[in-house]
């Protein structure tokens, strides 16, 4: 299938022996001038003239702007608590994929130019000069981090490698080493409205097709409105929901929930994307620009509420940063959370008993749930701390009869990244993605063996796409990953669905 070996899964996790340089060859394509310039970055696939001074100036600037970076550069004691926590280390054995070693790529340079010990006794404290080799190493290994923050959970000082990765990626992009994948995608959001570059017309056609699919299936006309002024709710969802499997089944699920709840809602062609790759590349400015589309769309459409669809990093940005970057939201209805997660909406409907649920519709599946890293470690889905774990599970259990969790050290805030998050969901990083999926695949295989689980549900577009791709490498099938709202959609019995649906089934059989 590829020119690398899929790692072995085990019944119990194995911490590998370090193999230096095991992933030194892994590096995503560098953005050419075309994609760099659209983002306002210099360079054409390589370092710019005078990159070294620029790099150090930018580092200086970052240290003055981000308390996280400044503090994290100083406080690490090299205790080793994080060394066996990263899925990329566990899957590749490359020591530079240990969170502390990844941070050290930048910390060694920080020490050399910013600390007394590093300036006068560099060898003693492991400080190094900034050279082209060092920068290339950074480009490689800062693109072997999915910014999932599992390491930060275990660090005694709360050091978050994602903060270091983001800072490093932004500096690299500004000295000529931007990542092609992310830099190609972000301009599409600005120009067209979504990461896919799906224009308004195509989007409208797709939604019309969805309406037909749901009607064929249920006999009920469920609307998927686009740019409808005066709707109450603006749904912002990852663009993968418009066409990819199993994402689209989730979107049909949201539509059914809204329909059954009797609320008016709309999608926006301008904000037809929940994803915000500004987070991945560590650019406050980009993250803000992408967020502001949602503000503009909400104002133009005159909605009262904003609801986000199933997407991990999008929810991290929406939950934590939308208020900061695109607020204040004083023009929206303050009696609902701003923004609200689709699961918060659905959970509320279930609690109020306004959805007609037939759990047996999902009896052909035994489910487990994958906590997406950004949702688990950077948000809530509900009022209480930890509701990001309970809400999705409660919704799944409300619509399915068969549910089992994976082992305790691989769920909740100890969950493993799918292996494709943080701007790494690109074909030029396939080896990394497959190897990085190891810990999750291992716990999934074990729950399949122990409990007879058949499907894994997720609430993140990147997780769903990544699993679709890597499940076959581990001897499973791509359709074993499902959307949570796909399960909800399966179980909802819409008003008027009963007999008509049976009739249409009969008609199909007759035809």
């Amino acid at each position, binding site marked *: 299938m590829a020119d690398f070996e899929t790692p072995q899964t085990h019944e119990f996790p194995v911490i590998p*022996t*370090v193999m*230096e340089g095991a992933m030194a060859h892994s590096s995503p394509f560098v953005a050419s001038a075309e994609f760099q310039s659209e983002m306002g970055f210099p360079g054409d696939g390589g370092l710019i003239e005078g990159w070294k001074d620029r790099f150090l100036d930018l580092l200086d600037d970052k240290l*003055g*702007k*981000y*308390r*996280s970076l*400044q*503090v*994290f550069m*100083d*406080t*690490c*004691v*090299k*205790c*080793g*608590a*994080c*060394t*066996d926590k990263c899925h990329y280390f566990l899957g590749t054995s490359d*020591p530079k994929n*240990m969170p502390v*070693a990844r941070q050290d790529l930048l910390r060694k340079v920080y020490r050399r130019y910013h*600390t007394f010990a590093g300036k006068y006794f560099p*060898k*003693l*404290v*492991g400080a190094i000069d900034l050279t082209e080799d060092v920068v290339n190493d950074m480009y490689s290994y800062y693109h072997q981090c999915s910014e999932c*923050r599992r390491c*930060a*959970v*275990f*660090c*005694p*000082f*709360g*050091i*978050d490698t994602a*903060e270091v990765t983001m800072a490093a990626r932004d500096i690299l992009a500004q000295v000529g080493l931007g990542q092609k994948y992310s830099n190609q995608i972000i301009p599409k959001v600005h120009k067209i409205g979504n990461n896919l570059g799906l224009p308004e017309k195509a989007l409208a056609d797709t939604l019309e097709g969805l309406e037909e699919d749901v009607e064929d299936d249920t006999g009920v006309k469920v609307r998927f409105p686009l740019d409808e002024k005066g709707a109450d709710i603006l749904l912002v969802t990852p663009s993968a929901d418009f066409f990819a499997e199993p994402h689209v089944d989730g979107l049909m699920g949201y539509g059914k929930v809204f329909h059954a709840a009797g609320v008016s809602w709309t999608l926006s062609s301008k904000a037809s994307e929940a994803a915000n790759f500004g987070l991945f590349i560590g650019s*406050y400015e980009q993250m*803000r620009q992408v967020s502001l589309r949602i503000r503009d769309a909400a104002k133009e459409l005159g909605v009262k509420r904003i609801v986000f669809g199933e997407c991990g990093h999008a929810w991290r940005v929406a*939950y*934590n*940063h939308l*208020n*900061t*970057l695109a*607020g*204040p939201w004083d023009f929206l209805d303050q009696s609902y959370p701003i923004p609200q997660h689709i699961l918060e909406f659905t959970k509320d409907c279930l609690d109020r008993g306004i959805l007609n649920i037939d759990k047996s519709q999902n009896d052909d599946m035994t489910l487990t749930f994958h906590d997406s890293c950004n949702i688990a*470690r*950077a*948000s*809530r889905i509900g009022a*209480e*701390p*930890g509701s990001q*774990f309970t809400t999705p599970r409660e919704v799944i259990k409300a619509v399915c009869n068969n549910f089992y969790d994976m082992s305790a050290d691989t769920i909740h*805030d100890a969950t493993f990244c799918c292996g494709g998050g943080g701007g790494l969901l690109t074909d030029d990083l396939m080896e990394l993605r497959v190897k990085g999926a190891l810990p999750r695949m291992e716990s999934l295989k074990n729950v399949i063996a122990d409990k007879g689980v058949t499907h894994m549900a997720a609430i993140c577009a990147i997780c769903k796409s990544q699993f679709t791709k890597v499940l076959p490498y581990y001897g499973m099938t791509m359709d074993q990953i499902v959307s949570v709202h796909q399960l909800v959609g399966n179980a909802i019995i819409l008003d008027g669905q009963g007999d008509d649906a049976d009739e249409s089934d009969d008609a199909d059989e007759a035809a």
Partner: protein
Amino acid sequence: MTALSIIYVILFYLAMITLVVGVANKIVQYVRVPAPLKIAVTPAPITRGGVVYRFFTEVVFFNSLFRATKWTWIFGWIFHLSLLLAFFRHLRYVISPNSFLWPLVNLEVVQSFGKYAGFAMLFGLTGLFVRRIFVDRVRYISSPSDYLMLLLIFAIAGTGLLMSFSKEVGISGVDIIQLKAFVMGLFLLDWQSLPGDIILLVHLTMVLFLMMIFPVSKLLHAPGLFFAPTRYQVDNPREKRHLSDWGAAIEAKDGRNA
């Protein structure tokens, strides 16, 4: 006063100033640099009180480290706890018998716990050192300074123990009455002679060195712990708008948040 005493008086002041000014300087830096975004690692407390509790569990029990690795936790926690006990024992050198704190410091339990804590400290440090050498992952991330720091503190604890148990090992004891006079003199600006025992001088020199390198080494983890936005931030971004000065400046420029 001997020349030796004069040198140590100067060294003490130098070390004290370096430590206080250096750490204060770092803390001022940490306070001044803004945190533009909400990055609390969740589940996170939704109130200030909850954040205090979160830090309590981290500072007192090393909660996250406990979840991460039991070996490092046991060695690290024992080391830090014995450091605290040894610190309490040493307070007798800086607190006057007239002080209201004296009865506390002079408690048998404080003094003997502090005395035997030295052994626990050596145990913890040995564990951390052995781990640093033999666990390949930890060896990979270690610089010479990481080993030397452990050795330095090991030597400080070792010389301290030798003085505490001078009778048992058969060496002459340090005149701690005179030592106390010297230390109190530093604070009262009434300088006294320092006992000339070689073990004491070695012990003190290493302690002074440790104080001086504190602000320029990984010992900054002590104050730095409290400035990690991932831990101190309250999880309330939807309820309360968080905006840094530089974030506000960007907004003011294009007016798009109006």
